[in-house]
């Protein structure tokens, strides 16, 4: 590698390095000319590696690849929902495989508007994700731990898969998913109130930045007004589509849990998500065979029930056990309860999401229709999974908190975490 090539590489690479690191990149290139010719190539290669690392290029490449995947996903949902060939006045055919294409499954055009709402909401949601992820505050940027990063990516990926599955299901089975609220109009506002209250409690418990200093100086009425103003967009979204309100709530939950300002420890994220995935898989494996497996082995029914329902409690207990030592018994109890709360919520959410995606995905793949309200049933599971997990997680967390409080005399000095 001659000096002109080195100079050219140096000029190009140094430009992409942040200003505070530019001296170092220039230093590598300045030395390259002095390195003996036979060692120059490894020196330059390692220098380029350093430049790429310091410029955060791998993260940038990952970010843009993620954005491209989101754009492709959005385009896929839109085309899936918009596509359709007119086969008769007032009807649209669905794109089913040839084997079942002649089975006469049609989409009623009255639902087409709902599908289009679904598509628009998806695009809005996917467009808002990067903004939400990078903004400094309750929902971002992502925490430093590997667990937070992995959970955020996997969680968002799972939500995108759920969106695709719902869109596909809506198209191929003709279910009016977007109008799910119309099926149970009376419970719609209750559902929204449950989600809003739950999300509010979750944000208050789990994040450091939920109560900024300026907010504490405001009157209760003013805080209430701000709260209503903040919830209003959610209400509009809910009127458009309750399923989308639920999906948005899940996304906000994932972002709040994995944000840098979150009080939830990486161990809690690992235990919560791990227990949720395990519980969801066990549940799906037991039920996906239409109960035949459990019917043949009835003794497994209580085992599966105990394992699935004990998962949030165990996750809460494990998370509380790994909570860093605190100054006094009260702080230990508070922190254990918080981590138990978060681990239980995460377990319930992960299990509900996994079960919803896998069951609805199976319906899409096998072209099954379990009943007119089957989709809503799973959306209800997604609604009540996190609160149920939270209750069990708190029980697990407080049990461990009691144990740790008794084991640790009050006033013992704190230990450094980790």
């Amino acid at each position, binding site marked *: 590698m001659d000096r002109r090539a080195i100079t050219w590489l140096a000029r190009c690479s140094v430009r992409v390095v942040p200003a505070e*690191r530019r*001296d*170092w990149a*220039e*230093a*590598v*290139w*300045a*030395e390259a*000319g*002095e*390195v003996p010719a036979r060692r120059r190539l*490894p*020196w330059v*290669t*390692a*220098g380029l*590696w*350093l430049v790429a*690392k*310091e410029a955060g290029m791998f993260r940038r490449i990952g970010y843009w690849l993620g954005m491209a995947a989101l754009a492709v996903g959005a385009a896929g949902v839109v085309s899936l929902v918009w596509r359709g060939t007119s086969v008769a006045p007032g009807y649209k055919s669905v794109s089913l495989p040839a084997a079942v294409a002649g089975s006469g499954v049609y989409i009623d055009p009255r639902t087409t508007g709902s599908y289009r709402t679904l598509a628009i909401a998806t695009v809005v949601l996917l467009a808002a994700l990067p903004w939400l992820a990078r903004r400094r505050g309750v929902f971002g940027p992502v925490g430093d731990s590997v667990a937070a990063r992995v959970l955020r990516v996997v969680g968002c990926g799972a939500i995108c898969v759920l969106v695709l599955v719902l869109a596909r299901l809506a198209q191929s089975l003709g279910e009016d998913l977007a109008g799910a609220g119309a099926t149970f109009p009376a419970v719609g506002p209750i559902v929204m109130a449950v989600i809003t209250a739950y999300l509010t409690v979750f944000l208050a418990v789990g994040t450091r930045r939920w109560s900024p200093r300026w907010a504490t100086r405001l009157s209760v009425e003013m805080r209430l007004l701000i709260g209503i103003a903040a919830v209003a967009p959610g209400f509009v979204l809910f009127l458009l589509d309750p399923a989308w309100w639920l999906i948005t709530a899940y996304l906000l939950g994932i972002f709040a849990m994995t944000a840098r300002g979150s009080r939830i420890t990486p161990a809690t994220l690992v235990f919560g998500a791990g227990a949720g995935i395990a519980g969801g898989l066990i549940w799906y494996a037991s039920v996906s065979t239409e109960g035949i497996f459990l019917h043949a082995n009835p003794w497994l029914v209580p085992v599966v029930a105990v394992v699935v329902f004990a998962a949030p409690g165990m996750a809460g207990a494990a998370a509380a056990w790994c909570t860093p030592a605190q100054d006094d018994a009260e702080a230990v109890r508070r922190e254990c309860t918080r981590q138990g709360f978060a681990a239980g919520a995460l377990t319930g959410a992960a299990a509900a999401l996994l079960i919803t995606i896998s069951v609805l995905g199976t319906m899409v793949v096998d072209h099954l229709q379990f009943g007119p309200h089957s989709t809503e049933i799973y959306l209800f599971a997604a609604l009540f999974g996190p609160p149920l997990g939270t209750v069990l997680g708190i029980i697990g967390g407080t049990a461990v908190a009691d144990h740790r409080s008794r084991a640790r005399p009050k006033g013992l000095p704190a230990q*450094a975490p*980790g």
Partner: protein
Amino acid sequence: VPRDRVFSEQTLSVLAALSALPQRWHHGYGIARETGLKSGTLYPVLIRLADRGLLEACWEDDQPAGRPRRHLYRLTTDGLASAREALAERPAQGAVSRRRPVAGRIVPSET
């Protein structure tokens, strides 16, 4: 200097090279020759040491003929004290940990 730091093997070798002649300014390729480290390992070590205030860096004042100006490095007072302390406690040659050391990483000691 706090006693809550341990250095990786690569960092120790860089500290050894720099503390051998603490008043002299060293350049990257010279340190690489002394320590046997490649640039991809050496520079991250130097960057982390500088970030922690253990190393000072500057460019050569004059433009030498026939080669670019060098980036020069020297341990700070804190850096020299840390280096001497860490090198005094350095495990005997051959008793190096089997774990893959992370270049330039400063981790809390187990004490």
